[in-house]
């Protein structure tokens, strides 16, 4: 890790990282799997593994996984947020059983929605 030695360094680093994130977003499918205590307890890790396995099985190479913290929907855990290139993120809840595979086969592969979508009802402060 390159050390940050000044405020200018930090800003430069932030811009690089932001640019890389924008690039990833435009080219890849981003999958955020909630892995907080309550998500892990309801099977979040298994969902991550199952989706990774299915992505490999389908031979997809443009999917990037990220573990994230609480997505705030305890009632619908496990939850997964998927952002298709150029699209708004969609959160899927109740990802139990075969749902993980289904998400890969339908939504990730061809943008076909499956049930369990949680409508986003918040505004988020971006710094």
């Amino acid at each position, binding site marked *: *890790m390159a*050390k*940050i*030695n*000044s*405020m200018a*360094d*930090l*800003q430069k*680093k*932030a811009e690089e*990282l*932001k640019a*890389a*994130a924008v690039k990833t977003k435009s080219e890849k499918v981003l999958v*955020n799997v*909630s892995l*907080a*205590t*309550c998500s*892990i307890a309801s099977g979040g890790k298994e969902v991550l593994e199952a989706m990774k396995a299915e992505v490999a099985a389908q031979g997809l190479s443009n999917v990037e996984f*990220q*573990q*994230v*913290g*609480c*997505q*705030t*929907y*305890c*009632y*619908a855990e496990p939850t997964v*947020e998927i952002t298709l290139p150029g699209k708004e993120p969609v959160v899927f809840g109740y990802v139990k059983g075969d749902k993980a595979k289904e998400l890969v086969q339908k939504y990730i592969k061809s943008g076909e929605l499956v049930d369990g979508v949680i409508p986003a*009802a*918040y*505004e*988020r*402060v*971006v*710094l």
Partner: protein
Amino acid sequence: MATQLRIATRNSGFIDPESVESYIAVGGYQALGKCLSEMKPADVIELMKNSGLRGRGGAGFPTGVKWGFAAKYDSDIKHVVCNADEGDPGAFMDRAVLEGDPHSVLEAMAIGAYAIGGNKGTIYIRAEYPLAIARLKMAIEQAKEMGVLGDNIMGTDFCFDLELKYGAGAFVCGEETALINSMEGNRGEPYTKPPFPAEAGYWNKPTIVNNVETLANIPAIIMKGADWFNKIGTETSKGTKVFCICGKIANVGLIEVPMGTTLKEVIYDIGGGIPGGKEFKAVQTGGPSGGALTYKDLDAPIDYENLVARQSMMGSGGMIVMDEEDCMVSVAKFFLDFTMDETCGKCTPCRIGSKRIYELLDKITIGQGTEADLEKLRSLSVNIKDTALCGLGQTMPNPVLSTMRVFEDEYRAHVIDKKCPAGVCAELLEYTVVDQKCVGCTLCAKVCPVNCISGKPKEVHVIDQAACIKCGACLDKCKFDAIIKQ
């Protein structure tokens, strides 16, 4: 439709909490950089004061003012403590922030240290939060390696050292003086203030104690400015509040709303209402220190003053929703059971008082309470509030007083009619057979563990009330809805 506004939880669920780069990519550590490069410590405190941010740990003390006190004292060492003890039943917002966005808390602590002229930080966290602990440790290490924490942060003279201390999970250890005692290796018992921690806290050095959610707001306030922040919320309460809604609510989870959002919006718009077509009865805010709010309060805008005016409180943000099937005497008993276990025992009103209140409530729920007991309960509660040493004891009677005030009928039904209107207190229930519905299938008699149901096949069955142990097995078994519980 009420919308949520996410400030304290802005990153949780969006970034990888185990990667400092992930945090930097969303503007992380820029607020600290801004303070170090563009602001004097006094400017930071001024900005915090102007923002109107108040403590989210329960008491609602203005953060900038607290920092200002600590800044005034001269000392070689000053401490910043993050209170991550989170002991309220039903509250888990601090855990969510720590697990989802640990760096924002570290960054805010460094900003606090810079503002008060200190350079030591401690996170007091309960040992039951292993994932939060692991992520915090990782975050501290990565941030130091990156040069945004530790020695000579971002090339400046400012150094900030940070350690974790673990609590054993005692509710009282969240109280700031008990917390300081516990950090020093003593029993986690509160002591009388003054001196306030800002003057003489951890190892007698000036110390600021701030809650996790309070801290998580700070980098956003520094970046967006005091004016931005204090335009959100109400006259007396600025910004947002994170709540954990649980109990009889469709969408159990975490929400963050601007202060001033009404309870109705929280429960119905965001929480999705009460499941199973049941009637809303009450919502407990402020946990064991708070009180029950009812349909009369649904339109009340939530802020510190409004909740206090309605004899509840904000507390740390637990919201327990109750429906018609919840008995308010039992609810009060649940909270008293909790405080009875958690009292540190240092002062008599709290140690013995909690036990006596619990006993009275228990007596009422088993049908042995009298009207005189209600009076006793009330006066005992008022006395404890006036005489206990710390916040735990001073607020412990609140759930009793508030449920007694709002649901007096329910208390009276228990002591006078020996009935539990909500159908919860087992000893006060009666299982009876509805003659018109019973077809005499004999199933109930077969399952009754004490054989207190009699009747011939094809004839109406009868329950011997004196022998019935109220187990409910018969009610579950009857296919003809011929048994009722009241």
